[in-house]
């Protein structure tokens, strides 16, 4: 069962949470690469490690992202 729709950024989301991408800023070059790596709207992401940098799993691929970059990714929590 899906849970709450709490909006947050990938940087602030809790480690271990399953998330859905709601929005990525459309025109910054870093975010274009994020999109090309699969971070498009509605995609599911799992945050697996948190620290100075973050590790998340998207479409079966692990990607390490700087915390600042994660602030550009708006997500909603769908499950723990």
């Amino acid at each position: 069962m899906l849970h709450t729709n709490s909006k947050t950024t990938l940087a602030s989301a809790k480690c271990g949470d399953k998330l859905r991408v709601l929005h990525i800023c459309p025109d910054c070059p870093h975010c274009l690469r994020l999109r090309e790596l699969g971070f498009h709207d509605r995609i599911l992401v799992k945050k697996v490690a948190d620290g100075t940098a973050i590790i998340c799993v998207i479409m079966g691929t692990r990607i390490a992202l700087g915390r600042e970059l994660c602030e550009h990714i708006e997500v909603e929590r769908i499950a723990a």
Partner: protein
Amino acid sequence: MAEALFRRVAIAGNPNTGKSTIFNALTGLRQKVGNYPGVTVEKKTGRFFGSHGEAMELIDLPGSYSLQVRSPDEAVARDLLLGRVAGEPRPDVIITVVDASNLDRHLYIVAQMLELGIPVVVALNMVDVAEARGLSIDLLELKERLGVPVIPMVASNATGIIELKQAVSRTPLPKPERRAQFPIVFETEIAHLAKLTNAPAESARMEAMLLLSLDEQGLRDANLSPTLYTAVTAGQTRLRGAGIDPISAPVDARYDWVATMCSAVVHRRGEDNEGLTISDRLDMILTHKVWGWVAFVAMMSLMFVCIFFLAEPIMEAINGGMAALGNWIGSHMAEGDLRSLIVDGIIGGVGGMVVFLPQILILFFFLGILEDSGYMARAAFIMDRLMSRVGLHGKSFVPMLSSFACAIPGVMATRTIESRKDRLVTILVAPLMSCSARLPVYIVMIAVMLPAAGALQRAGIMLGMYALGLIAAFVMAWVFKKTLLKSETPMLLLELPPYRAPIIRGIAQRMWERATIFLRRAGTVILALSIVLWALLTYPKPENPEATQSEALAHSIGGRMGHTIEPVIAPLGFDWKIGIGIVASFAAREVFVGTMGQIYNIEDADEDNEELREQMRAEKRPDGSPLFTPLVCLSLMVFYVLAMQCVSTVAIVRRETGGWTWPLFQIAYMTALAYLGSLIVYQGGKLLGFQ
């Protein structure tokens, strides 16, 4: 006579998809490494034969996520595919390698390849991994929907290679007709802009599409003509007016196309397995805040201990061979300058370098394992925390780690760094990492410094030298980022590939390549330097035929050079003989050991030569005190850690930075740093009462 080429085939795809494994499987050892004309990026090509023996050239393009490039190596792939590189026609076929276990992400690059108007063959690699994950791929449906040949493969065991050759040899190979559909207004803008670009008809559509997707900075950097710039910005404005973002729309359209395709061709058997994979479990340790560091330090320590233990018997064998060769030549030639040149100059100089080939190979073996297993990306992640403190991100650590083997591949590996300033900073500090050429210097100095030390103690000091280089690199990177190359700390964006068993054959092939390069260097640069050095240390001869060896050396040009620089290096604890070694090794630091051998008249001098060590330990200053005290040995090692003594690295830095400014600056700052470091160690040590 060279065979006529039937086709030029490019191999493209995302990083970590097995591209190089397929390239190696197709070409075997028929490979060559060169450079693209006019650019400084390495070009790896090979030759293979089609199903009817047709000769084809295979071009290994750098791994790339997109044609909308972010780094110099991605730009090379894009430029070659679009025919932008002068003298390099567009390929006739593109083999696009995709990871079958992750089609929903990897088909994105296929979508772009299909837009290029060049025949495409999809190499669906790692079907075994997909199978193990419970994924079933409907190949017929995939071929039908893509409209191009799709070859299922397991490149690691060469499954599918024959079928791939057959697919590439097929005549005719039709151009792809299916591709992701963009909004009609977007297509209209592309068609309009394509007419304004000067690109050839076949690549004009993609060129127009890439221009429309550029952000403001990208447009400024593209150096467009005023007419084209105006047309692009006007097109972007019209698209935005129609509610379409020109940057994200093509990406979204392609991913929609990929999603539709995957829902039709990828079937999951059973429930989606949410359990932890082996990669997940390993990452829980290897990327952990504490255990990640413990594992990293343990792996580095293991590597250095192995360099000592495993290489020793092979080095002894080479050593024995060189000594036997020197003795044999010595016993078959009359005494004189020619014999001295061959035995002392050539065998002593070149032999002294060849002997540490086993250690270099072990180093490359370990680095190959780290890279192939997927750990290198984790090391970059672990190091990101530290690197961000000096203004770089974890990606800069990979070139630095490669520089432990040799600064040349390290400097070339900086091409993956997007920001020019960060790339320059990484290039400037990469040679501070202790490369394999420093090994013989460390080995001989540690042996002279602590003759009774055990292997672990020696490895510990060695690790200390490597740590010093690493710390110096961090400090200098911080200084450069705060001063000369000021810029914001870049944001980390790094794929962590799944852990995989390394393919030993591929690693062996890379070790073979490195060994060939190393031996070629030994046979050219080092040989030439050894001969020059021998002449400098031999001529002019003293007028008194009864002169001692030391007097003859002091009379030679080399000896005079050593005496000239002695006042400058005396505060570091060095005498004129060490000065000769330093001057001689400015072109290649490994020459130092051979030079010491020539100075002390040791045939077949290398770091394992006990006679050389004994001679050095016994060497006295004019006041009768020992020259090579532990403090002098340490000071000398610190000098070698920090000094830039490699012409090949200077040449590669010049090529990569496009001029002499940065390599000259690098030589100057590293020499100053080496002098300062040595001075602090020696004078500080003396003040503290050490000898």
